[in-house]
């Protein structure tokens, strides 16, 4: 290790007692604080945005509008939460948008053409998503393809398959009893089930990421895949699992989207992956891997929805809404870099 990384005057000779010099600790808590700070920053941004729109328009801060923001967040949020795992491993999944579409088509076919029970259609869509994710994982971990390429190819395959399977026509699902309730029912008054699904998923996967072996492996692979492998971890197996998990989330998003629209729309989906990835990045997850959180992703997804909703209420043209979201992504990544540089600067320079 070079001194540049530890100007703190450490003495590693054995006779000096185990107590570390106080200055050495700076890096530790500063790094930890940095992680929390990023989430705090994202949360602060979210609050500031809401305050701004609340002041700018009387129509923003109403129960019905806030509900519609949450509903609009659900699908992107579910995709984003799942893909957070992949991004923390240092990978990327471009197939989640069209993969979601494919899953909703599969669910639609199971429920209409094949007339299977609701639960089979729902679980079938999720399982199909997991299969798509597993294939991505196989291409990445076993065949060694770069995630970008592997999932770009899968994005195209999924889009094509969705069109082929559906005959390029929407599959209408309003005739399936109970299907609409999945997203739009209100187990809790005023809150659509889609939102509950998102929060429940985020809670469960948040625990998985921080408290389980799978989560630990996600961070480990993203921090240093080779070191993880040499530590005696079967990294292939874990990567397969992680991509499959993200794929299952894709399937769930497909089911929720189809339920919300009462139909499976084979033309939809392209572009959702980029919005989900943007939400993950705004939430402070590093594209380089090894760092990120589900809470951050959730906040990131909310920031995007609030922005789009707020701009719409202020009658900003939808073309310009996209421009603003793009700028927000830039600012978020820049702020994260700045914070990182400062945190390291404190320890180093």
């Amino acid at each position, binding site marked *: *290790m*070079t*001194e*540049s*990384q*530890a*100007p*703190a*005057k*450490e*003495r*590693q*000779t*054995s006779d000096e007692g*185990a107590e*570390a010099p*106080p*200055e*050495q*600790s*700076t*890096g*530790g808590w500063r*790094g*930890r604080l940095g992680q929390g700070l990023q989430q705090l920053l994202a949360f602060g941004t979210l609050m500031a945005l809401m305050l701004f729109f609340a002041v700018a328009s009387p129509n923003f801060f109403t129960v019905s509008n806030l509900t519609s923001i949450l509903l609009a967040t659900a699908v992107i949020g579910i995709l984003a939460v799942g893909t957070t795992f992949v991004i923390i491993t240092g990978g990327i999944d471009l197939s989640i948008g069209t993969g979601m579409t494919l899953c909703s088509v599969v669910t639609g076919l199971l429920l209409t053409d094949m007339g299977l029970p609701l639960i089979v259609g729902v679980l079938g869509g999720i399982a199909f998503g997991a299969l798509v994710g597993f294939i991505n994982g196989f291409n990445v971990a076993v065949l060694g393809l770069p995630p970008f390429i592997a999932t770009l190819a899968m994005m195209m395959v999924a889009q094509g398959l969705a069109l082929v399977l559906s005959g390029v026509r929407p599959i209408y699902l309003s005739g399936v009893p109970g299907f609409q309730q999945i997203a739009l029912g209100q187990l809790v008054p005023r809150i659509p089930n889609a939102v509950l699904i998102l929060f429940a998923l985020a809670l469960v996967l948040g*625990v998985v990421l921080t*408290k*389980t*072996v*799978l*989560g*630990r492996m996600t*961070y*480990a692979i993203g*921090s*240093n895949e*080779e*070191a*993880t*492998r*040499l*530590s*005696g*971890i*079967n990294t292939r197996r874990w990567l397969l699992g992680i991509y499959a998990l993200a794929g299952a989330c894709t399937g769930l998003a497909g089911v929720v989207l189809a339920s919300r629209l009462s139909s499976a729309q084979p033309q939809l989906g392209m572009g959702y992956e980029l919005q989900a990835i943007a939400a993950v990045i705004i939430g402070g997850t590093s594209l380089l891997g*090894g*760092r990120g959180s589900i809470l951050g992703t959730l906040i990131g997804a909310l920031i995007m929805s609030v922005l789009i909703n707020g701009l719409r209420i202020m009658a900003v043209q939808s073309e310009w809404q996209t421009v603003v979201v793009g700028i927000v992504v830039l600012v978020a990544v820049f702020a994260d870099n700045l914070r990182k540089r400062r945190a390291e600067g*404190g*320890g*180093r*320079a």
Partner: protein
Amino acid sequence: MSALLEIRDVSKGFPGVQALQDVDLVLDRGEVLALVGENGAGKSTLMKILSGIYARDTGTISIDGEQVEIAGPRAAQELGISIIHQEMNLLPHLTVAQNIYIGREPRVGPMLQERALRRQTQALLDEIGIRLRPTAVVGDLTVAQQQMVEIAKALSFESTKILVMDEPTSAISISETEVLFRLIASLRERGVGIVYISHRMEELREIADRVTVLRDGRYVDTRDIGEVTDEEIIAMMVGRELSAHHEDRPERQGGDAEVVLSVRGLSTRGLLSDVSFDLHRGEILGFAGLMGAGRTETARAIIGADPISAGTIYVRGEEVRISRPDQAVRRGIGYLPEDRKRHGLMLEQDVAFNVTMSSLAQVRGPLGVLRGGKARQLASSFVDALRIKTPSTRAMVKNLSGGNQQKIVIAKWLARDCDVLIFDEPTRGIDVGAKEEIYRLLHDLAGRGKAVMVISSELPEVLRLAHRIVVMSEGRVTGELANDEADQEKVMALATKNIDEGDVA
């Protein structure tokens, strides 16, 4: 006449740390000045001030008797200061010539003049006596050759008169080191002053004129190297005498201890050919050889990190098939890689994360839920046992020193309770005090019945640590020596044994 470079009373503080306090350094023309000190003593900080990366807080720097301000790396270059960093800054996909003259390519308008560039580079390489092709791609060169390219680059600036080398030999072999030393000798004849940072005493003795010692950011002393003993230098560095040598040269191990690991006829497609050896319980088996002799490859082949083309591995007499590292670990074989940062650690994660990496099975509950408290407990028991200097088990590993990072990798395998530990260059980049501690640790491990394999390029280290020494050359085992019959000459003779010649004769 004034000195070439004179640094007086330079101080530099970072938030919470006084990295340098009133440090002096004087370098004459044509002199090689060794700069030594433990990691964290301030050597790199001082060199970064010299190269314009950091600004000093107080003090003066004079070149040829004139006070100078070094505003940035560019200004340093213009003042004739060139630094060859420990971590190289070359572009692996470009050629030697393109690397040396990057940003200064001969051109006509916007068009690069590749041929002129090659000629110019050839002339430079000829002048300083480096035998490399200007068109060779840097990524294909050995580490030592890349080092040569760095040196050539530094000297390609006409004005270079002060050259700083930060541990230039830490990654190159003995024969390559000799080439480097010849180059240094010719530079010195041209009046270039060289600041040479290294941890290796023999090396400093061979090339340095004087030695300046820093400790804890302070200047300790400057002495003619002929006037001081190694022990005195080390004492100046650590601020006390080291009680190191009482356990020099381990006892010869009785051959009756159980064979834990047995390797027969191990071969790989690239390099290894018919490598066989036995490793006993409680034994430290040294692996000596030149760079590229196949020692790391042997280790990686054993643990299944690289595929093998032939050979059998027996663990406690039982034949095992190992094609992935996790299978090796399940058999109780742990590998501590040569390049800790790249292959051994998750630098951005904390101590507990790294220590428990291989033994999560011990701290997991139902559904794979990790027990955070138990994990921390496990980690902190090893932090205590190995005396790892860290503020807590939550500290990020990248903020620890090299010695403590190495101990974390060791802790990882001890937590897993591996019987066979393969150390690849366990003390590379670690300072003298921490080295002693690692040595003691290795002895303890062997004493507790672990079977330890140590790959090292530092002969004194192997001679000191190992009960037996396996010597490799060109992918084969060329000899095996018991400690009491081994010495540097014998090991070197085996390490340089040319297999092909032997076959012809």
